[in-house]
């Protein structure tokens, strides 16, 4: 089947008409409300996997349903159903409406559909790509990985994609629909050298179609996975304790995500539980630091044409030359603060209510060459690849795991290191940023952010950055 329907037309195949939308919104607002919305979602996901030199598994998943939210002040009633028949939708709406017991917003008499930008244009939907087209790709990646080095003993590959359609209908009459493609690929390697064994991997992800996998990207996917496994064979644990840390350009954006990004989500500030709750317009970092959360980067994993409550997405400056300038708002927090939403209201699926979330978070370029930054460190740690970030919103303490890096000795990268957790305090680390590089890179990896039991795709990026001191959880060996 070749897709010809627009995103708005997509849900007509499930019987979702303007009349039905009005009927369900009327049920949701029967006790009144300050806000209400319906979120219809249909996604088709496919994944193929290879291990032991065999393309030996596929997984397909279809998800269809609707979530209904009724908002009164900062109180939320939420219900969802996988059954899109009118009676079931109205039952869910009636359940959600129980949160509201006072007169307010009524259901719309007519709906309007603002035109959305297209931040992820694609030529072909994934449902129009046969499994037979995916199989040779993963096979070729495996062959390239084995051919790279005799120490590569096992290779695992997966190629995943999703066609997701959403339709969001608000009680103020706004109705928008969006088609959201996503693809990701992962290649994992087990390398064995005598008694030593290590696993390494690399992944790429984007809101894109099959053309995303050009020759250069396929080469990086394989070569970086193999390089990482081989590097781990000779890497050691760094020494423990506080030391200067240089974050490499790209996935080091995890520092921003954990040290400040979550703390800028407006729900945490509205509830006064973020360490940034009373710091708006105050200086929190040196002049060189400008931090942005952006929903508009072309084809980025974190991009969205509109957020999940039909607000326009945008480029939001969180920190401008060291000063805190904006939180990330959904419609509830925007009403609370009397500002416009920043298009940051996101949810994992129709089974989850909206929360303020990050999209693509990055730091703008500074004035320094990366080599100059490394040369400025007498003894410290250079961090290259990451996993598992976490933060405590109120205390501001955060951590992330460095999978690969190097020791810096006398201004030069020397011994490779691996597998170490770094921990710090958000505001203290932002103040401790000493140098910002001129090599901003948005990482191409498949980052996923977790909050309140919900996972959403995000992107992150950073230029090379020097932090005066972070606690490194290395060994005493």
């Amino acid at each position, binding site marked *: 089947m070749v897709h010809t329907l627009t995103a708005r037309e997509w849900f007509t195949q499930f019987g979702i008409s303007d009349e039905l939308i009005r009927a369900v919104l009327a049920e949701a607002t029967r006790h009144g409300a300050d806000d209400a919305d319906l979120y219809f979602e249909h996604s088709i996901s496919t994944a193929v996997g290879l291990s032991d030199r065999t393309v030996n598994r596929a997984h397909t998943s279809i998800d*269809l349903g609707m979530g209904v939210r009724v908002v009164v002040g900062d109180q939320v009633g939420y219900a969802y159903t*996988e059954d899109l028949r009118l009676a079931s939708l109205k039952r869910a709406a009636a359940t959600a409406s129980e949160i509201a017991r006072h007169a307010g917003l009524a259901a719309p008499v007519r709906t309007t559909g603002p035109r959305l930008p297209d931040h992820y244009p694609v030529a072909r939907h994934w449902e129009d790509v046969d499994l*037979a087209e995916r199989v040779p790709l993963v096979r070729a990646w495996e062959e390239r990985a084995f051919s790279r080095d005799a120490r590569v003993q096992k290779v695992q590959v997966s190629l995943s994609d999703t066609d997701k359609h959403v339709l969001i209908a608000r009680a103020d009459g706004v109705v928008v629909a969006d088609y959201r493609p996503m693809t990701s690929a992962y290649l994992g390697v087990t390398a064995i050298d005598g008694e030593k064994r290590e696993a390494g991997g690399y992944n790429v992800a984007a809101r894109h179609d099959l053309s995303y996998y050009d020759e250069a990207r396929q080469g990086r996917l394989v070569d970086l996975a193999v390089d990482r496994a081989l590097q781990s064979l000779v890497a050691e644990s760094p020494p423990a304790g506080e030391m200067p840390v240089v974050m490499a350009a790209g996935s080091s954006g995890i520092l921003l995500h954990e040290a400040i990004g979550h703390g800028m989500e407006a729900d945490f500030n509205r509830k006064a539980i973020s360490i940034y709750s009373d710091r708006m317009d105050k200086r929190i970092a040196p002049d060189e630091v400008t931090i942005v959360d952006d929903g508009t980067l072309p084809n980025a994993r974190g991009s969205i044409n509109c957020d999940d409550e039909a607000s326009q997405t945008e480029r939001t400056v969180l920190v401008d030359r060291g000063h805190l300038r904006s939180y990330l708002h959904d419609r509830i927090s925007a009403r609370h603060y009397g500002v416009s939403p920043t298009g940051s209201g996101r949810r994992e699926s129709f089974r989850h209510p909206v929360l303020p979330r990050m999209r693509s978070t990055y730091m703008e370029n500074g004035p320094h060459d990366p080599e100059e930054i490394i040369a400025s460190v007498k003894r410290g740690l250079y961090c290259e690849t990451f996993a*598992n970030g976490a933060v405590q*919103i*109120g205390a501001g*303490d955060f951590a992330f795991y460095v999978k690969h890096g190097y020791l810096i000795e006398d201004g030069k990268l020397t011994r490779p290191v691996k*597998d170490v957790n770094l921990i710090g305090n958000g505001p203290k680390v932002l103040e401790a940023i000493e140098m910002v590089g001129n090599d901003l890179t948005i990482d191409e990896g498949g980052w996923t952010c977790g909050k309140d039991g919900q996972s959403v795709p995000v992107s992150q990026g950073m230029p090379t950055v020097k932090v005066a001191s972070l*606690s490194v959880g*290395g060994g005493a060996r």
Partner: protein
Amino acid sequence: MSHDDDILDLAERVVRFAKKLGADEVACSVSEGSHVTIQRRGGKVEQATEASTRGLTVAVLCDDRFSSNSTSDLRPEALESFLERAVASTRYLEAEAARRQPDAALCGRGVSEAQLDQLDPVWERRTASDRASYAEALEDALRELHRDDVVSSAVYAADGHGRSIRVMSNGFSGEDEGAWFAAGGEMTLVEGDRRPESSAYFAARYLSDLPSIPEIAGEVDRRTRERLGAGPIASGTYTMLLPGRAAGRILGMLAGPLSGGSLQQHRSCLEGKLGERIGSERFTLIDDPTIPRGLGSRPWDGDAMRSRVRTIIEEGVLREYDIGVYHARKLGVEPTSGGRSNWVLPTGTRGFAEIAADLPQAIEVTGFLGGNSNGATGDFSLGIRGVLWEGGQPTRSLAEMNVSGNVLQIFHQLVETGDDPWTFASVRAPTLVFEGVQFSGT
């Protein structure tokens, strides 16, 4: 086949239809459930969520080619085309006979429904008013403990029910049903520029097995106040006191290396160590899916093979891996189990306070922040928060510190287990005491 069908009928019809389409083997699971969550903050309901849900997963094997497929679109016409597409697309894959279903003789219920005791009759009688009253009482109890430094607190009460059916073309058919209850809260204080926070959550199969409302509120308050004045201390080796509720993170680092997938892909630091000592004599780890009201209890495992109690580690010696049918065939060994259920550690004779009183100095790790472990080498590095104990007294709240080590070493450092197993999770560990653990701070 639709939203209105009984799920057993639905599963049986899916298996028949997929076979008719040409699948050699079919396994279908259908589940349905409902849940309600109420969260209160500031003296009112902050969020109420309610849903009834249903979904289906079908695994098909066609000419030894395998796919797994799931859908929540149960409209009759959609389900038929979903199955047609699943069977047709599976043929594009490559053959691997290891995917075949286990012998039907190995499948079935390993423990009676009565023994598992997963369905609290209270759940069916619970009304919207009961739930609202419970959440309100919990919030009132927590707010009664507020002092001037509290900037926000919230409570959470949830319950749910699930029923699932599995039907396989090898003849297996089974039904499983259970309910669950959860309650907890969080609190944030103001302390200079920082806003120390903590939380406490509890889950159980029976409502009556949850702690009382005052106990839950008290635990939220205690854990949050414990965070005041937190900071790092000097790097070094310390005795680590790990309360049962936090032990899952350390014990969980064994799960990957124990799994058949890691072993078969040579990504496990435990490969080749069966029968070898990997911990002290204090370390015994049992996988027990038969515990009445256990959160990880189950009648059969992921391959539908009968549940049984298994000793994974016996007095420090590795006795058994977690190897499901697929990886067992690839490894040429007998399957043990496709994944863990309840993990149980035998208890000791002393409680936390008594153990702490005997230690001149120790770090109690109350929670973890980020970090990871390398399953291939066993190296781990985890961020921690905790409390410094000296002479049996808590003397300092700890933050911005890491603990590091190796999975193959850390359990040799286990010197005592407490008499206080944590029962609100599937990892039912007592307090664990490890000597000579590497912490990094200032």
